[in-house]
């Protein structure tokens, strides 16, 4: 184990896999000479040269389409979206091609492309560049959607993506790039898709979350423990598709209360899917309605104070926990 930032964990995963497998390559805007807007690809052009670290024009549809073609013919391309918000332009390539080629080819052709990049609020990028996409991509069969909350998971999940057969949407939290955490040193360390984990044990309330909101949930859980003696069990989903809710069901069967936390807009969000599944599967164990904590239903403001107000914070998680415990 050694302590690494979320940013370095992602970079390390790519480097280890490019060393291990000559078919892995990366393309994107400003990733080579400029070394990436978020410095994820620092030093990689020098190390692997312009054939494997490809600076592209500002043309997301072209990048994604090229990558789909490369993947169909045996390469393992990574597409770095400068932010995942830009991938809207490439939506047809991702949703109608990457996600469906295996199906249309009767299972003959895989598309092992990884489309990765930062998403989410917290870094003052305003309304067009602060969105989250897990519910959007999580809706489509044929895709895998990862949303790591820790440096170790960022590395382990990205390595799984680069060794698997599926098109993977790899959603990095822009606000977590600087976060540090212990990461295993083993170069074969991977985290499988579809395996949620219990990030914190507790008996009173179950909090289900992922990505940056997992960290907010953990902070809230620590405060609840200290201030109120309420012990929250926190479940980290890690991947939204496949979605493993079995640990959440087991936890709710124990705590009888559940709060689901997501960063962005409540309507049709991931929390709705999660809450509904919990109600379907462990209805008789619930002593209160499943609560959702979500961001404000507005385009993300640029101003720092407003951005903070529009994003879920630990206070809201604590309030929701109190509500499901009938303590407010």
């Amino acid at each position, binding site marked *: 184990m050694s302590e690494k930032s979320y940013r370095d964990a992602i970079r390390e995963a790519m480097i280890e896999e490019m060393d291990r497998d000559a078919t892995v390559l990366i393309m994107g805007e400003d990733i080579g000479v400029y070394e990436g807007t978020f410095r994820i690809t620092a030093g990689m052009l020098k190390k692997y040269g312009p054939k494997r670290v490809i600076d592209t024009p500002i043309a997301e549809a072209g990048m994604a389409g090229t990558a789909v073609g490369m993947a169909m013919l045996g390469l393992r391309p990574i597409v770095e979206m400068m932010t995942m918000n830009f991938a809207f332009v490439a939506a047809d390539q991702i949703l109608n091609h990457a996600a469906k080629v295996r199906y249309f080819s009767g299972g003959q052709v895989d598309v092992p492309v990884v489309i990765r990049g930062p998403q989410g609020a917290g870094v003052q990028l305003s309304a067009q560049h602060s969105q989250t996409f897990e519910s959007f991509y999580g809706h489509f069969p044929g895709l895998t959607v990862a949303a790591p909350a820790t440096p170790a998971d960022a590395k382990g999940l990205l390595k799984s993506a680069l060794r698997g057969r599926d098109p993977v949407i790899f959603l990095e939290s822009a606000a977590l790039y600087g976060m540090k955490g212990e990461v295993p040193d083993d170069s074969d360390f991977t985290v499988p898709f579809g395996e949620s984990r219990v990030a914190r044990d507790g008996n009173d309330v179950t909090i289900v979350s992922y990505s940056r909101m997992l960290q907010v949930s953990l902070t809230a859980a620590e405060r609840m423990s200290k201030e109120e003696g309420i012990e929250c069990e926190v479940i980290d989903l890690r991947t939204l598709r496949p979605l493993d809710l079995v640990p959440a069901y087991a936890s709710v069967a124990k705590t009888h209360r559940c709060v689901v936390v997501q960063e962005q807009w409540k309507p049709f969000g991931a929390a709705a899917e999660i809450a509904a599944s919990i109600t379907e599967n462990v209805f*008789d*164990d619930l002593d209160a309605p499943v609560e959702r904590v979500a961001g404000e239903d507005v385009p993300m403001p640029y101003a720092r104070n407003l951005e903070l107000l529009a994003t879920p914070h630990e206070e809201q998680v604590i309030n929701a926990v109190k*509500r499901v415990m*009938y303590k407010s």
Partner: protein
Amino acid sequence: MAEIIMPKMGDAMTEGKVVRWYKKPGEAVKKGEPVLEIETDKVNLDLEAEQDGTIAEVAAQEGQVIPVGGRLAMISAPGEKPAGVGPRPSAATAAEGGGATQKIAAEGGGATQGGGAAQQRRVTDKKDSIKHTTGEYAEAIEMKAPRIDRTAPVSAPLRVVEGGRRRSSPLARKMAREMGVSLDAIEGSGPSGRIIAKDVKAVEGSRPRLPGQPGAPVLHEQQIPLSAMRRTIAKRLAESTGPIPHFYLTADYDVTNLMSLRQQMNEIVKISVNDFVIKAAALALRHHPNVNASWGDEAITQHGEIHIGVAVSTPEGLITPVVRNADQKSVADIAAEVRALAEKVKNRKLRPEEYQGSTFTISNLGAWGIEEFTAIINPPNVAILAIGTAAPQPVVVDRQIVVRDRMKVTMSCDHRVVDGAAGAEYLRTLRQYLEQPVRLIL
């Protein structure tokens, strides 16, 4: 402005008649004061004002029939202008939609209203109620607190005023089921009076011990899944004799001791033979939970409590007010309760909760001199007792002809649930109670 609507007093009720107005437009009313009397197919009852105020509008005439959910009157709050009554909202929709009509009132009014009377609103279902209030609550919170928590569910501040079912969390229901506790007896501490796990646990801790009845077991509600054999029996019997396959068992009881006990007790308090029969039947049910049951397509429900329906005839027909937990009440209490219920039946004042929820029924035609008869089961009960007249008869005791008081009881059983031997066993237990009536007052 608060609205009084035609309430839904039972599943079958679609409309009600305005009998008389106690209040006229412009007249002041106090919260809890009767405003008008209505008549349903079962009862007459008074509708009360839910707040202080003035009658702003009377929307129906005496004798007029109004659909469930339809407006009857508007009450304006003190200081509120009685004018400006809007168009009648969705009364027809409420009745046609068939959804449970509920009245909800906003709580925590301080934030939403300027200290006025609680604003009331009628909605056709829960979804509507949320839709109606989202905006208001969001705004209210905005005014009150700089930090807006829009993720808070808006259902929390809503409170059912009338016509709603009892709310309970799934976990509370599961616990109550497993503990054999009836939710009816539990006060909910959650929002909208929701019964939550904590409330069920509290009841478990302080559960009243049943009065000492020697040898009478404690009951628990339980579901007995239908076995293939039970399903087949049910299907075949139902095919042969209609939805409820009845069969009948008649027993002839010696009630000499019962009659003499009654005579003694009557010197203190008036008790009818039927009151003893109610107590005896209820106690006997404790030994035979399979008779205190209901049929369902997936399972037979054995009830955790014993509620005896008592058939009372009226000129319009028959109604069965219910003596709840009759096994736990004294014969004198049962007598008083039955008298009070019969009085209400006569005045058509019986409320739905007073004639719904029986687990077993007794019909007694003894007063008419009927020696024996068969009664039709009152679903969802699975048995009914038809009680004949208690009369002196010559019987043979120790090879001597003596005169004893005899009473014939015929039990109608739902064969899907109660088999012949089970019914016979119940009647045998009933015999012990009726022939040794001291057991009824122990």
